[in-house]
């Protein structure tokens, strides 16, 4: 009689810990050539479409897009400025006698800056028709004063590295508006009066589309009683204008006319977003991947094996989401860095500041694109786990992402912006590096909207997969 030894696997039984789960999900992703090819397609589409868009935009912007050399395309440093040097501590006083009220943000007032060079650090105390007295510095700081308009007395005082603004109705009783710090101030600063006005956004619906244009608003204002204190003779170098107009060196009254704004420029071209927009196409492949990564198992019945091997189904789904998201992030990172490095030189023509990875906003856009691709893949996975059918899941996710973007080409801007802010398509906001008139939502808040959709979908998916028969 022969005794049979029952077969025993020589493989040691492993623990069903989370790392093992991650490993098994990674093996599933890695070992199917189709998944790898899909990721490759996503990366290729991102890079190719990005290059195409950069080539198209590069040819167009070679002439420059209105922004000044050397400063971020987000800002403009234009307008009309009449200035003279001020050495050491001192003040500039003037009365804004009249101001043309053609824009709520038209600006007329006093300015001190490190140099006359556009883009140099500045502090500006101004009157605006719609927002009262403001003290602004370096494009981003904005301190409110009273609600008064012209005529109004203004005073700007330098003490060391700080500049303080005052306002007054009569030129003798002063109230403080605020103090700003200016970096890089040498012993001598440029000080003077300025006029600026933002370009107006004209939104006109015609011929079934929205015609969006910027029209120049000429800022106009007159100043009197302009004087520099203390009036030491060596400070009284002649007034100079930032245009080529001649100014009376001893004038105390000025009438200025200036086009362009000092501050945010809402018509700037977002070069980084243009380059990275190929991700919109690459992402479609990732949607398919995210959906199929789960529905294929339902179709083939492999899901039974998976759930038998690890009965805690919620954790299986979580592990799968992490593996897929991680893989998509890595692929996205390679693609977005590649397309940026290839396409940035193509689009960095013209005189506007180039898009560079050393700019934190640009870096956020590039890395954020990878995060966006990862979250969209996980979102697709979650939707697929809920509806279980590839057809329904893919169509739903693609339409949620695409329709808001397509709608912007035909619907009024306000409606398109609203759609773009409340749907998962808001996640694309992470790619923008500047604020524009058509910006629907901030980069991080937009990304948070997408993450919220994904978290809810993943929660419902885990709840569903635990309760239902596979």
């Amino acid at each position, binding site marked *: 009689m022969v005794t049979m030894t029952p077969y025993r696997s020589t493989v040691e039984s492993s623990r069903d810990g989370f790392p093992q789960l991650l490993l098994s999900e990674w093996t599933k992703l890695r070992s199917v050539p189709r998944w790898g090819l899909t990721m490759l397609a996503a990366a290729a589409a991102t890079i190719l*479409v990005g290059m195409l*868009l950069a080539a*198209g*935009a590069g*040819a*167009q*912007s070679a002439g420059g897009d209105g922004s000044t050399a050397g400063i971020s395309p987000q800002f403009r440093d234009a307008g009309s400025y009449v200035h003279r040097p001020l050495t050491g501590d001192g003040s500039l006083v003037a009365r804004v006698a009249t101001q043309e009220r053609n824009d709520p943000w038209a600006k007329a007032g006093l300015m001190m800056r490190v140099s006359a060079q556009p883009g140099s650090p500045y502090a500006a105390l101004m009157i605006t028709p719609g927002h009262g007295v403001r003290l602004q510095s370096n494009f981003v700081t904005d301190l409110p004063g009273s609600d008064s308009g012209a005529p109004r007395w203004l005073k700007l005082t330098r003490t060391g590295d700080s500049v303080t603004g005052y306002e007054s109705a009569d030129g003798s009783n002063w109230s403080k508006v605020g103090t700003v710090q200016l970096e890089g101030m040498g012993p001598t600063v440029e000080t003077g009066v300025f006029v600026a006005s933002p370009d107006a956004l004209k*939104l*006109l*619906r*015609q*011929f*079934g589309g*929205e015609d969006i244009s910027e029209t120049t608003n000429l800022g106009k204002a007159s100043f009197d009683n302009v004087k520099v204190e203390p009036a030491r003779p060596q400070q009284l170098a002649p007034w100079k204008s930032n245009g080529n107009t001649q100014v009376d060196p001893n004038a105390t009254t000025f009438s200025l006319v200036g086009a362009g704004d000092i501050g945010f420029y809402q018509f700037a*071209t977002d070069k980084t*977003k*243009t380059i990275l*927009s*190929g991700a*919109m*196409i690459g992402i*479609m*492949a990732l*949607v*398919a991947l995210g*959906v*199929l990564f789960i*529905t294929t198992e339902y*179709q083939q019945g492999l899901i039974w094996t998976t759930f038998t091997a690890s009965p805690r189904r919620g954790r299986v789904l979580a592990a799968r989401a992490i593996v897929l998201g991680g893989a998509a992030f890595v692929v996205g990172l390679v693609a977005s860095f590649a397309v940026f490095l290839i396409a940035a030189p193509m689009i960095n023509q013209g005189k506007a500041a180039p898009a560079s990875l050393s700019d934190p906003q640009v870096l956020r856009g590039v890395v954020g694109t990878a995060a966006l691709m990862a979250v969209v893949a996980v979102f697709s996975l979650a939707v697929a786990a809920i509806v279980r059918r*590839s*057809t329904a899941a*893919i*169509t739903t996710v*693609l*339409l949620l992402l*695409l*329709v808001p*973007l*397509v*709608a*912007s*080409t*035909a*619907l*009024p801007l306000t*409606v398109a912006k609203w759609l773009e802010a409340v749907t998962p398509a808001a996640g694309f906001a992470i790619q923008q590096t500047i604020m524009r008139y058509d910006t629907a939502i901030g980069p991080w808040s937009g990304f948070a909207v997408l993450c919220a959709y994904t978290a809810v979908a993943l929660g419902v998916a885990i709840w569903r997969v635990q309760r239902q028969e596979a």
Partner: protein
Amino acid sequence: MRHSLRAEWTKVRTLRGNTWLAVGIAVCTVLATAGATAAVSTAQCPTVTTCFEDTARLALRGVWLGQAVVVVLAVLMMSNEYGNGMIRTTLSAIPRRVEVLFTKAAVISGIVLATGAAGAVGSLLIGNVIMPANGFTPANGYPPLSLADGPTLRATVGTVLYLALIALLSLGVTTVLRDTAVSITAVLTLLYVVPVISTFVTDPEWLDRLRKISPMTAGLAIQATRDLDRLPIGPWPGLGVLAAYAAVAMIVGGVLFVVREA
């Protein structure tokens, strides 16, 4: 041919999801039109008389959404059979493969023509209800949309034809790719890619070129009823571009269908 037609019709009719999808074509079109027309009013124009709004085109905008349902229905008609192996039964019963593909094309076209017509006419009707409230009144130069008007009739019929061509394009692509998910992704990408990236193409010449060769933007030129000279491509040539896409997809699909093992 009559038998294969009946066989295809039975296959389509008896799948419950298909009924919903067919109804969905009309419903999604009308709902999206309701949204689009509600969003546009003469108040956004410089003046009421210089709006030049193409109200027929606006009211037919719903196909932007409705076409996605057409894609799903047409893709499933072919890919389902590959998914569950039914294709082998079909080809055993009707070994003439060209005939199988033709009947499938005929059946899906018939369904889409019927539901698309319902969606298009429904869109015009709901547009006539919503748009006057937003200032598009006869007094302002916007008479109610009517099929008695030549250009409106052409836009409406063209929209229905557009949907049928989208169905044929989807069927052809699916015959090549066979897989549901891959086919749907491919067709939707092909349709929406140019509209999506067009906001980032700043060069007007490039934009014009892209809009001429994109099946969706070229095909939908058929919906324009006024200011035709502003279109990147004329209405019928535009629909012709889409027809060319559909023809190429069907021919390549047909050749592969005959040559390949099922």
